[in-house]
């Protein structure tokens, strides 16, 4: 039975791969030339880097919903229960701790740079948030930061801040006639404001996905 299933899956998988490869090879080129559209409108997006312009301006509501999805994932994780005493810090390695202490300012600096760089080169809130979260995970692994159990008031505020700022900007701009259509003069500043909030919240959320899991005895 198991062998039968295995061969069936292999056959179906191979035919699926063959069908998709044939489809990809025959695909005509796109009817809408998106890169040209982005380049045309880049000047009024408020930022100079096309990926950031798409993320925070042209398709801003995608990003808004994404942050909501991240929050939802974290909230679901928190409702899974457990929540016993936090796991004791891992074996203390003075070398690792010293390294972590020295790395911390660099990590924060890198995150700040990535946030700022997003306006004109690869970078932005997601990368900066990921770097912050990696820093928190590093501190936990080095035994300097205890794992998290239940979020207190300040942590809760930090987790939702990015989403709330984004939502507030979206609500304030509803008068423009479309969701998240920034006035071109304010676009750069608003995007930086949203990204700053997102960096903090994404860093906390991504760190929380790790630190809440380690802090709970399942």
């Amino acid at each position, binding site marked *: 039975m198991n062998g039968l299933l295995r061969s069936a899956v292999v056959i179906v998988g*191979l035919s699926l791969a063959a069908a998709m490869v044939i489809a990809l090879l025959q695909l005509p080129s796109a009817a809408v030339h998106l890169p040209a559209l982005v380049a045309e409108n880049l000047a009024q997006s408020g930022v100079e880097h096309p990926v950031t312009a798409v993320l925070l301006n042209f398709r801003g509501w995608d990003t808004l919903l994404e942050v909501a999805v991240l929050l939802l994932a974290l909230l679901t994780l928190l409702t*899974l229960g457990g929540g016993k005493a936090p796991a004791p810090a891992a074996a203390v390695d003075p070398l690792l701790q010293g390294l972590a202490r020295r790395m911390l300012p660099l990590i924060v600096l890198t995150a700040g740079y990535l946030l700022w760089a997003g306006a004109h080169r690869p970078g932005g809130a997601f990368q900066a948030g990921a770097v912050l979260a990696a820093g928190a995970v590093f501190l936990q692994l080095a035994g300097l930061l205890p794992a998290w159990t239940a979020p207190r008031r300040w942590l809760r505020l930090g987790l939702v801040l990015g989403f709330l700022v984004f939502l507030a900007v979206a609500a304030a701009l509803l008068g423009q006639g479309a969701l998240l259509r920034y006035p071109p003069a304010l676009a750069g500043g608003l995007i930086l404001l949203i990204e700053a909030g997102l960096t903090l919240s994404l860093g906390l959320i991504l760190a929380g996905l790790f630190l809440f899991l380690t802090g709970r*005895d399942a």
Partner: protein
Amino acid sequence: MSTGLLYALAGVLLFVLGAAGAVLLAHLMRKVLAFNVMGSGAFLVLVGLAQREDVIDPVPQAMVLTGIVVAVAATALALGLARAFHARTGRTGLTEEARRD
């Protein structure tokens, strides 16, 4: 054949490998990893296909950036669920014969 198309074809292979793994592997953590391989394949198809004419398209790149972050969160959630499942049943897989440990 452009580099972009080559990436898309590699993405197809990754997707199929991951899909087969998600069906065949019993251990929940392996299933989660297989889903991640599937997701990476889908991202590769999306980005590779968009630049198969050697023009870089920022729109799918932004979509994939969004997708990667959501995939990380979904993976963490899946691992949390798998851990809670293991804590309640002692099993590491969904089938009855899955090893208890």
